[in-house]
């Protein structure tokens, strides 16, 4: 069986040539199937007497899998030829390229491959704008490609591009160039020059002729309508070539060569001429608040869609609408439902928003991808609003972005339709906007922009900024921070942004002061925003674990509120308790050597304990992680830290074994030949002054255990 694809610039006459070729083949009793791969679905009209056939994609949309039959979408035309139209979405919506893939899949599923055929002709959309339209070029489809062109430069340009595209797949299957004249002088000469330059012959020539229009007028191909015409003869010869002709290798020209060959001169220059246009203009940064992955164009870890969802899902009173397939909703939702399970296992309080999730997904299906998802999104909002919901966060996936759904437009229309409804648009488009942290930043800032009321009277309180909702100790860290603040008589106004509710977000500016709870870029971005937008005050210090860390942030807050003595008194009590505990532990720790291999910089609270306990540091190596402060001050206090871009694991393992510390601290267990005790460094440490001591106590207890547990003898 021969499989032929006909390509060429839009409007060049591919469908006319394809359908006449099909007719010519059918007259010779060759069994032909013509597949129109254009959303306009007009390829096979003239073969079926001008009938507009039912398209494969309409069928996919409107039928259920169990009821589908091939006969419902294959028509029979002139002299028994078979006709299929792939169809596609309305102009401007959906993804026609995806439609082609789905149409071909369906035809395959319904058993097209088992029909007895001699030739399949794929009549493809003129402008191959994405991979979907290139499907017929794939190895398992067309074995021969014909390129239709006129003598106009842009038509030959398109032909050249098609040869380039074919070369990307399998170059050795060009059947030839089909010249379809516009009726201008020198057209044929231009095409001949191009043909010689690329080494592909012109295998058919068609002059401009009224005969085509006359045949179209009566809903027929020229071959059927005018059997004695010159055009009929030409198509018959073309059909012979298709059945018996050679194949050529796709060669193509670069732009300059093409211009020279076709136009006889080069107009393209390689020199970029700079102008003064825009010199005095201040560019608007595309995204002023970015994660490090985005800022540095690094490999993105996770997607902004999921990051945004973990923030919005943690806000009670807000409905999160995910415009995505269910796949994506499940991946995002798992983070919050897993957090609930972890809270249960740890006997901790869960984030209320996660425990009672208010999420709706538009369940984008294959049909949605092809035909667009605007109406689905609109219907989802209508349905939810009728149940009484009126505060929404809309988050878009990569699929809705790629198919060009107008999510913002739908939101605007919905808000106009339903006064009182508020929709925060988080057009993340999956990971197009950035990584997971970018989504967290966008959602946090978006919620503040949407709901926070400016310049509220102050209430002698602080906001905690940089909440990480999916960390296991999010709630407990919140509680510990609250407890420490309570010791100096200050309350928390709002958790920015996570584990909170809309009313708290509204009253965000009522806090006198803000403090970051995470020493990373995400929190820093929120700080920048809150300072720029609301001129809010921030502490210099971050809520940190450890004795010194706690003293620094607590004292700073107390000073701000003019109650420094209270903080000093509190810290004295804490320090005494710390010293008492340390004294009991010191004998067990003093002189022990430690090696630290950490994936992040948040370890000063460990180093503090190590030094105060009189332990020796063999080496501290820290990965320069993507989302931490560049100027995080650990290095000032602990100059022995080495920051690295990558861990060279084999070298590090060798080094650890050579140095043979008593204790190795790391986030993941490391395979060592020697039996060196290892302890886990948490990714998000617990807040509080005694965190380092708690950690050290675990080392002591482990040290009192047998050097080698019996179970290791059972390892095979």
């Amino acid at each position, binding site marked *: 069986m021969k499989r032929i694809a006909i390509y060429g610039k839009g409007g060049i006459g591919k469908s006319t040539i394809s359908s006449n070729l099909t007719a010519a083949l059918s007259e010779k009793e060759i069994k032909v199937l013509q597949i129109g791969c254009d959303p306009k679905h007009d390829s096979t009209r003239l073969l079926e007497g001008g009938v507009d056939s039912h398209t494969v994609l309409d069928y996919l949309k409107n039928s259920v899998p169990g009821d589908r039959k091939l006969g419902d979408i294959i028509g029979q035309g002139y002299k028994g030829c078979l006709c299929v139209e792939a169809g596609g979405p309305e102009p401007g919506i959906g993804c026609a390229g995806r439609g082609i893939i789905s149409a071909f899949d369906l035809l395959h599923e319904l058993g097209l491959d088992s029909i007895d055929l001699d030739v399949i002709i794929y009549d493809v959309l003129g402008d191959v704008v994405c991979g979907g339209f290139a499907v017929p070029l794939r190895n398992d489809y067309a074995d021969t490609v014909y390129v239709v062109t006129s003598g106009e430069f842009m038509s030959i340009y398109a032909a050249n591009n098609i040869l380039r595209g074919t070369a990307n*797949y399998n170059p050795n299957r060009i059947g030839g160039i089909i010249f379809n004249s516009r009726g201008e002088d020198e057209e044929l000469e231009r095409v001949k020059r191009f043909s010689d330059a690329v080494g592909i012959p012109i295998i058919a020539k068609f002059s401009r002729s009224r005969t085509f229009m006359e045949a179209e007028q009566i809903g027929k191909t020229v071959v059927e309508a005018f059997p004695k015409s010159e055009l009929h003869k030409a198509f018959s010869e073309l059909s012979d070539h298709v059945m018996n002709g050679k194949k050529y290798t796709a060669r193509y020209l670069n732009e300059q060569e093409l211009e020279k060959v076709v136009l006889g001169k080069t107009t393209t220059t390689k020199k970029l001429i700079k102008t003064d246009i825009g010199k005095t203009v201040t560019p608007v940064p595309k995204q002023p608040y970015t994660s490090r992955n985005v800022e540095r164009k690094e490999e993105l870890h996770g*997607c902004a869609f999921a990051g945004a969802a973990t923030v919005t899902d943690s806000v009670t009173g807000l409905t999160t609408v995910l415009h995505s397939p269910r796949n994506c909703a499940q991946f995002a939702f798992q983070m919050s*439902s897993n957090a609930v399970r972890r809270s*249960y296992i740890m006997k901790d309080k869960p984030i209320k928003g996660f425990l009672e999730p208010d999420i709706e997904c538009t369940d984008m299906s294959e049909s949605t991808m092809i035909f667009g998802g605007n109406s689905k999104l609109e219907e989802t909002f209508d349905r939810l609003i009728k149940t009484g919901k009126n505060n929404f966060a809309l988050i878009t996936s990569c699929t809705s972005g790629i198919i060009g759904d107008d999510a913002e437009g739908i939101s605007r229309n919905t808000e106009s339709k339903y006064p009182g409804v508020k929709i925060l648009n988080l057009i993340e488009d999956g*990971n197009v906007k950035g990584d997971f942290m970018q989504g967290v930043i966008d959602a946090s800032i978006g919620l503040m922009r949407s709901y926070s009321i400016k310049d509220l009277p102050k209430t002698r309180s602080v906001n905690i900024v940089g909440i990480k909702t999916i960390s296991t100790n999010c709630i407990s860290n919140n509680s510990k921070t609250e407890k420490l603040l309570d010791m100096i008589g200050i309350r928390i106004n709002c958790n920015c942004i996570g584990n909170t509710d809309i009313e708290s977000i509204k009253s965000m500016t009522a806090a006198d002061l803000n403090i970051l709870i995470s020493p990373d870029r995400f929190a820093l971005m929120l700080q920048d925003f809150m300072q720029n937008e609301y001129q809010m005050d921030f502490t210099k210090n971050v809520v940190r674990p450890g004795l010194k860390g706690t003293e620094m942030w607590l004292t700073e807050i107390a000073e701000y509120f003019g109650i420094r003595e209270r903080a000093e008194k509190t810290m004295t009590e804490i320090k005494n308790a710390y010293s008492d505990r340390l004294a009991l532990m010191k004998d067990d720790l003093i002189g022990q050597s430690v090696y630290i291999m950490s994936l992040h910089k948040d370890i000063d609270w460990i180093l503090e304990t190590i030094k105060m306990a009189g332990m020796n540091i063999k080496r501290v190596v820290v990965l320069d992680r993507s989302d931490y402060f560049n100027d995080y001050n650990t290095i000032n206090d602990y100059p022995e830290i080495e920051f690295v871009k990558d861990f060279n694991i084999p070298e590090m393992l060798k080094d650890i074994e050579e140095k043979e510390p008593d204790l190795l601290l790391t986030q993941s267990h490391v395979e060592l030949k020697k039996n060196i005790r290892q302890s886990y460094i948490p990714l998000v440490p617990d807040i509080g002054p005694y965190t380092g001591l708690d950690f050290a106590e675990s080392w002591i207890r482990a040290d009192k255990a047998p050097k080698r547990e019996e179970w290791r003898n059972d390892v095979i």
Partner: protein
Amino acid sequence: MSFNYETPEGMMGALLALEGIKDGCTIVHGPTGCKYCPSSSSEFAYTNRSKNDPQFCNPYRFFKKYYFGQPRIPCTYLQEDDYIMGASEKLTDLSDIVKKDQPGFIGIVNSPGTSLIGEDVGSITSDNIPILGIETPGYSESQCVGYQRTIIGILNLIKPERIPKINTVNILGLSISHLNWEDDLEEMTSMLDICGISVCQNIGTGWDTAGIRRSADAELNVMIFPEYGDSTADWYERIYGIPYLYSDSGAPIGFKAVEDWISEICRALDKDPTPALNKIKEKRILTAKTLLDMEAQHRLPTGRTFSIEAEGSMAYAITEFLYSYLGMIPVAIRTDSDGLWNSRIQKFVSSKGLTVSDDVFNTPTDVTIGSGNMVSAMMMRKMTLGGIDVTRPCRKMVKIEKEPIIGLSGTMRLLDQVLNILWPRN
């Protein structure tokens, strides 16, 4: 409020079908966001893949391009530019890296976004490694549909040859995403074994490429969860003439369902199910004695309520068992499977004059049966007295003892947990 997005979907089904090949490697052609959750699921679901290498999950080993700290399911980390310009170079590069390890099979799955830009996953080929490209990741279809489509894709590619082996069965309808699937297989294999029936292959769960090639040798195909095996069984029947069975009682959980399962298989292969039925009878007697003791203390579960969120065949079997055997009343049932099991459940509850909600999350109940996440949420909201994990993710983070969810042992597990939850009188 709802917990409606807890269950995995078609793309996860496809990925875990590929991950069920022991010597296989799966690639996601897509962004990292589409890789983390499936990678993690695969690592936890199939820890025995690398039995002799307990460190295989160590992220330090996989701190490299494409793997992002996880040993399973590397991805091509598509980003904005790739959606516009295409990402075939990354796919080729990653495929070449993976091929160097000489896996027995390579599966490449498009993420939803990548499937829209016409990336040709079928273009990756190899002379000696079978490679399956999954163009369409299933978007919003259920996990069992994605799973079976992929299994059939694997079979169409490998094309097993048939050398019939009598008294052998393939076990279909289970995936590595099912909780404690290895224990389940061992449980059912042992039950078949005492009746003189061997298992040829476990389709989709820990089979390797050599096993796939031999999977058409079985005399009969039998199913655990039919929605995960019916189309595959149909394929084997069409291509190789291998008949298949699944029980109308649903999944083999509950005394009667297990009895029916083994009896029907033995009848088809002309074997005697008595050894298995005797074991079941012993447990029936033991259970009945326990219930008599409970009755003496007015602690019977009769009239107590339960809810279940699971695949249809499991939900059906458990509902029938808890209602008929223990006299418990279902108050909410939710499944994500096809219409067949949903309608059977509806028919069953209607025939008993019961009204059952489909909103498990918001219906108070004595016992919740579902995933660990669902059970945790119900317990923390005080909507239930206790829960039983029957699907992933599970509340139990470490499991040493075997703990089948199905079969006779699975039935005893279910009974034990239900009766303990209900011990306090209501």
